[in-house]
């Protein structure tokens, strides 16, 4: 098998690690999000929902635990959507000519960058989880070590698929756009609907039907559901609502993410065959 994508991966990771400030910021920022937003909001929610009766026999988790999954998902979304920008810079600064005139099949560029976006997302998710546990996020509570291990695997599978999907989307945009400012604008515009029609920060049960429908096709919702299922459990309640996830539902969520990644891959591949760099 041609391992050219590893070359692309190597270069991208090299640059990621080389820029200490960037690396540091990308790790600390989501942790701060969890700390400030999470703690501030959880006090509010806890007060509001304190009077509601908890469903009997169901484990109740705090808001911080609830949005822990949301913050991980959100960070993965941002990181993956921005990770394609490197292609735009490479294209504009002429660096991509070297790669495009080499025997490396173009598909490997997409795969290589995809893998590095995935790696970055894993590192970030790890940092957020570690930091979250320190803050009192009740992930993996009452799990045996084996259960924790398999839950982590499940989470990685979800995050990996999700980040690939959005990286492919980002790569397709990057290779099509001319200016970094334009790309920035498009990405910011894109993140909004994904973010606010998802269950990352609040429950979607009380959404109007249109938004609810949007939220069910939103990959971010599926990622959050997956993380919650693996990290918290299949039946729990938080902020006065009960959440149940069956195995089938989680499988459907995963298939939805796979389908999303697959479609985005095809789009990215199509955009890459069109590109000419001079």
């Amino acid at each position, binding site marked *: 098998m*041609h391992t*050219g994508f*590893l*070359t692309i991966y*190597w*270069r991208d990771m*090299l*640059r990621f690690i*080389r*820029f200490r400030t960037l690396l540091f910021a990308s790790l600390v920022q989501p942790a701060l999000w969890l700390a400030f937003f999470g703690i501030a909001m959880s006090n509010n929610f806890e007060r509001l929902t304190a009077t509601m009766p908890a469903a009997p026999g169901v484990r109740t988790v705090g808001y911080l635990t609830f949005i822990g999954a949301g913050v991980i998902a959100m960070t993965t979304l941002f990181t993956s959507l921005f990770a394609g920008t490197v292609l735009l810079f490479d294209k504009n*600064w*002429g*660096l991509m*000519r*070297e*790669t*495009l*005139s*080499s*025997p*490396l099949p173009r598909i490997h560029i997409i795969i290589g960058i995809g893998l590095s976006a995935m790696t970055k997302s894993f590192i970030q998710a790890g940092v957020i989880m570690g930091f979250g546990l320190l803050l009192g996020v009740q992930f993996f509570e009452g799990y045996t070590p084996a259960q924790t291990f398999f839950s982590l695997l499940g989470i990685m599978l979800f995050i990996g698929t999700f980040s690939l999907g959005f990286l492919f989307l980002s790569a397709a945009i990057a290779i099509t756009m001319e200016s970094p400012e334009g790309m920035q604008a498009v990405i910011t515009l894109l993140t909004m609907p994904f973010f606010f029609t998802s269950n990352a920060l609040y429950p979607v049960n009380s959404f109007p039907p249109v938004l609810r429908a949007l939220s069910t096709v939103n990959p971010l919702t599926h990622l959050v559901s997956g993380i919650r299922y693996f990290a918290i459990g299949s039946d729990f309640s938080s902020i006065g609502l009960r959440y149940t996830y069956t195995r089938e539902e989680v499988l459907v969520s995963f298939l939805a993410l796979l389908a999303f990644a697959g479609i985005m891959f095809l789009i990215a591949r199509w955009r890459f065959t069109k590109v*000419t*760099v*001079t």
Partner: protein
Amino acid sequence: MNDLEYFFGEVKAVDNISFTVKKGEIFSFLGPNGAGKSTVINILTTLLPVQKGSVKIAGYDLKKEPEMVRESIGIVFQELTLDRDMTVREILEYHGRLYSMPKTARQERIDELLGLVELEGKRDVLTRHLSGGMKRRLEIARGLMTRPKVLFMDEPTIGLDPQTRIRIWDYVRDINRQGTTIFLTTHYMDEADQLSDRISIIDHGKIVVTGRSWELKNTLGEDLIYLETSDNWTASDLLKKLDSVKGVREKSKGLIIMVNVDGTYLLPEIMDKLRSGGIRISAVNLKKPSMDDVFVHYTGRELRDTGMEKGSTVSLRAGGR
């Protein structure tokens, strides 16, 4: 390569170009800015599609086997294409890996090439900290990394100081001696003249003429005589009648006469002829045709002054390079 054409939308950048580069040769495209040199290089290096025409490189058809062509060539682009955030070694390492070179071969080749372009001391320096000449040398080393059969160089010495240019010419000759065929473009007369085995002069996307440097110069005749006279028009008419005069070109202040014979002996005859026609001569210069003269002759334009008109030469030198 045959009948190559390329359009950017409505703009015809390359117009029906055909030529053959022999194995082991240094071949130059000499042409002014916007002539279409880079466009040809971009097509030959698979960065632009072949819209019309057919090309064979290192035995492979560019249209049918672009992968094989890519394997066989090395490229030095006109603009710098080095990642500022990678070190000299990493740049070469990345390139070697793109071409699936095995690890040990990569390391050996990196050592060898850094020696060749005298960058051993800069191995672990980020390219953003290199000077322009060093960057260019690194790009040449990168182009050679995979021991290509054909090396394409687009304006290899653009913007470099005279010493660095001469050094780069030396590398190019070295590389060529080791068996690499080289295709380069340039708008420097001296570069085309001194470096290449054969030259094509290209203008407006067309090849105007192709040949060895001395062949091209010889088409202008044995010598060039520059004259300033009291009546250039009449002088021109008179001289065109002489057998040994190949042609006369009018310049702003004087005439350039292309002659078939040794000018040293023809000059007295010309002066006699003009004097008997009642024309006064105020300035004379005799020289061998240069690449500049060839260029002007074939394109009808001057890249730089030919150096025969004294006044303008001085002002150009002062303002130019």
